[in-house]
């Protein structure tokens, strides 16, 4: 049936609404192929429809299938764009390799552009007052206390704090750190809050 594959594609996305799956290159190629085929068939029949009303209906159905395919493909892509945006807010401008591999090359390009547009915007904040930008991916939660106790989940290495102190983040070590300075590491799964 027409436009069946594209529904499979959307269902696939719906199965994991929170996480991003591997970009389905192959299926998209097949859908685009189906579209070219439908289009060709319609071109061939277009001239004949003048005398053949039944054929005209066929052309209409194919046209609807074409529109549906296009719409669903864009929905698939749009949905992934939203997920990729979330990645930027969670991981920052550098994606972990295993996440990066899930994106198509064009999607990674888009991620880079999204990321740099966001960075440009954030740099513009507070310029009049001498702040060189504000990182909006920090301070996501209302602060409860200035310091929190964290457990280091994996070997990370040195971390320099804003006050100049350098601490060593080793697997299973516990630290008492400024809340604002370890949020990113917590999101990245390097630290775990234990208080």
């Amino acid at each position, binding site marked *: 049936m027409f436009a069946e594959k594209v529904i499979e594609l959307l269902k696939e996305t719906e199965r994991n609404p929170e996480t991003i799956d591997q970009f389905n290159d192959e299926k998209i190629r097949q859908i685009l192929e189906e579209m070219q085929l439908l289009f060709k068939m319609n071109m061939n029949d277009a001239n004949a429809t003048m005398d053949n009303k039944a054929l005209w209906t066929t052309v209409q159905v194919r046209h609807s299938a074409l529109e549906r395919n296009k719409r669903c493909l864009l929905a698939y892509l749009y949905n992934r764009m939203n997920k990729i945006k979330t990645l930027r807010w969670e991981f920052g401008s550098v994606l972990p390799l295993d996440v990066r591999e899930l994106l198509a090359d064009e999607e990674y390009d888009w991620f880079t552009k999204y990321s740099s*547009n966001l960075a440009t915007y954030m740099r513009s904040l507070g310029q009049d007052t001498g702040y060189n930008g504000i990182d*909006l991916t920090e301070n996501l939660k209302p602060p409860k206390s200035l310091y929190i106790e964290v457990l280091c989940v994996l070997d990370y290495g040195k971390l320099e704090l804003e006050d100049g102190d350098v601490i060593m983040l080793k697997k299973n070590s516990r630290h008492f750190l400024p809340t604002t300075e370890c949020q990113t590491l917590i999101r990245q799964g390097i630290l775990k809050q234990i208080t």
Partner: protein
Amino acid sequence: MDSNEDIYLSDNEEEITAEIVLKTLQSAWQNERLAPEILPHRSDMVECMLGQLQHMERNISKLPKTDLRASIHKMEISRIKFIICNYLKIRLNKIEKYCIPIIKDERQRTDSGTNYLTPSEYKYAQEYLLNMENHMKNVILNKVPGNMQSFDMNKMAEHPNLQTHVFLKAHETVNGVVLEDLVGEDEEIDLEEGSQHILQYKPIADLVKNGKVQLV
């Protein structure tokens, strides 16, 4: 620490205190958080507050790390930063989601000088839309049959639902708010100072924008 000095806003010479700037910012954040559409920006308040924070941070750096006052100021700074970051982030989320209608409306508003976005936000919106369009073209549109390749702004546009219901508290008395009724029997209500209501956003959108009501 001397943070209680008065602040002058450059565009109007009215004198306001940091405390009032903070209150205004907090209420702008709350409204932005709860309104379905993007509201007129308050970058005057944001910039002013960032100036205060900067000043405060410089002063704290002179205090010993374990000084109690330093921790108190740091806590306040981090509370205010949360408001600012959350406020600006919510705006970005709306700008991304509704970028097509927002850019369209903003063009008209800029002509009349009643723009809702800051110049940086406007630039961000345009760049965002351009990136989205290019991405869709690269991956899909350029590969579909010739007569279907257009990026149709009207079809791609997502609009905020202005008819959604919101909770509000009236800051001051507003009489004669007209609630449209579907059967043509419009109903008029009065919002007395301090009273709370749940109603459609659309008829009270202007009251949110001019600060007469607070979304809650």
